[in-house]
């Protein structure tokens, strides 16, 4: 009778000690991941902010200049043209990718023999690197040794050998075609998951009610795919805003330096001119743009939920 209350208390104490030990084990398990994220992500992000307030040469002492880099950015016409070029590129690629990805997704959604093979083939360029496909296409577009120039001449589009990468419009077109070839399979698969999540009895009911194929697409498929569309859109937009490889490899910044994207400009400022402080301020601007885009993404997705 007297000893009986002591047993549960001792038990609780022992159990509590054990859970505390278990707690610390949990921290140990996640410690390597946290260490990597801290050293190679959190610290660099904070360091970027710190550097952006300095004049920071590669060699020699950095000096504090307050908002100097940001003031300079506001009146930097080359940065503005990088921004507008990136925006132009983003809009054009996104439209081009969606215009092709949607028909392809509808095509591979059908249950037919061989559809698996089509899905795989359309997806293949996605798993190859952007740098790799840039190298492949810069050869295809080369004036002397490439494929496009003789083909265009063969079909009589151009009279002489055409150097596609020499003028802005044709070089831009080559890059867009390359990016669409490389990315469209990815967007297609995302859209396919959206299409497949639409219950088939809904489309069946609409068909019985006499809705035409276009009506079913416009008033049933599209509204039900809002979430997927928003996701595919945002992935495409953020990817395009961060474009670098294709411009660096295919046109080295393009005819008359007109193909300098934002990331390319940061690269030039930080690692060609070695103005690391100014490069950091530009990075903060890029980061702000992307966070703003992410917020819009969340908004879009939430709106999709309410409907």
């Amino acid at each position: 009778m007297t000893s009986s209350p002591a047993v549960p208390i001792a038990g609780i104490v022992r159990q509590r000690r054990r859970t505390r030990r278990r707690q610390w084990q949990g921290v140990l398990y996640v410690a390597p991941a946290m260490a990597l994220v801290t050293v190679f992500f959190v610290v660099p992000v904070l360091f970027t902010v710190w550097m952006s307030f300095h004049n920071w040469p590669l060699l020699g002492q950095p000096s504090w200049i307050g908002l100097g880099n940001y003031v300079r950015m506001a009146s930097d016409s080359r940065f503005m043209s990088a921004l507008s070029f990136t925006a132009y590129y983003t809009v054009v690629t996104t439209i081009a990718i969606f215009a092709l990805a949607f028909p392809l997704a509808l095509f591979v959604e059908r249950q037919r023999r061989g559809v698996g093979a089509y899905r795989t083939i359309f997806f293949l360029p996605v798993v190859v690197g952007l740098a790799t496909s840039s190298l492949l296409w810069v050869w295809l577009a080369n004036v002397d040794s490439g494929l496009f120039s003789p083909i265009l001449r063969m079909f009589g589009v151009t009279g002489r050998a055409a150097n596609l990468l020499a003028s802005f419009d044709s070089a831009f077109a080559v890059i867009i075609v390359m990016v669409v070839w490389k990315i469209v399979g990815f967007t297609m698969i995302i859209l396919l998951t959206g299409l497949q999540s639409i219950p088939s009895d809904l489309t069946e009911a609409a068909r019985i009610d006499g809705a035409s194929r276009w009506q079913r697409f416009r008033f049933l498929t599209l509204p039900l795919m809002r979430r997927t569309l928003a996701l595919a859109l945002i992935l495409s937009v953020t990817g395009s805003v961060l474009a670098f490889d294709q411009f660096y490899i295919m046109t080295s910044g393009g005819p008359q330096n007109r193909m300098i994207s934002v990331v390319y400009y940061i690269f030039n400022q930080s690692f060609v001119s070695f103005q690391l402080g100014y490069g950091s301020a530009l990075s903060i601007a890029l980061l702000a743009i992307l966070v703003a885009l992410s917020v819009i993404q969340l908004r879009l997705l939430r709106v999709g939920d309410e409907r």
Partner: protein
Amino acid sequence: MSAAIKTRRTRRRLLGGLGYHGFGIIAAFFFLAPFIWAGLASLRPSSEAQNPPLPPWPAHGISFDAYKTLDSFGSGIWQHTLNSLLVSLGTVVLTVMVSLLAGYGFSRYRFPFKNVMFVLIIATLMIPFQSILTPLFIILSRLGLNNSLLGLMLVYVTLQLPFSVFMMRNAFDAVPREIEEAARIDGARDLKLLFRVLLPVVMPGVATVAIFAFLNAWNEFLAALILLSENDKYTLPVLMTAVRAGRLGAINWGAVQAGVMVMTIPCLIVFLLLQRYYMRGLMAGAVK
């Protein structure tokens, strides 16, 4: 009457099938053609390497001249392929280890600030790594890891973590607790429990994490371009860009074709062999 309807129906189905596969085959040709063209052109002798690839196949017998020319750039193609393989496989091993432990910790333990830590790892997805390359360059050189494949590997592992930790935590969440309890009664604890009992169960998740880590590390270009400064450390994309820009001698398009094939084939093999796990990862990321 009914026979006429039947034949009309079969004819329509036949025509529909023809239209479907006609479109499919033409589209498939456009997606495959660049690979086929580069692959065939890379087998032409060096006398033809600078000519337009019409027809793409070698007219005077198969030759490996392009690959031999490629080998004369930088420190030789084997060295650079080895660099790429070291970085990619190292990234795979480290990513799997770190995310396996973290996924287990986040799924099975309770500790202070657990949710904060998890959100912090996932939140790094919101910030593009392109915007932190400048300080990364400085931090790595302070750590003595500039121009080192290990430094590049650690950066790649960090970039893989949000997706991988998320995948692995979900994989562990899906494992019924009974399995663990039974193993505990049998005397398996902690790491032994994790590696002997749980690892085989979450293997599909590990495969997904590994394939994404491999492809992303193998294909990454910008970070490698910035963080590697000496020729002999170059990974394949950086080497090939230098070859294409003519920084390592006159541009040889045969070598570019050969390099493209060396970079492409491993990706295609890995993808075709492990397609199911790749698509699972894509869906998990898409549905999120």
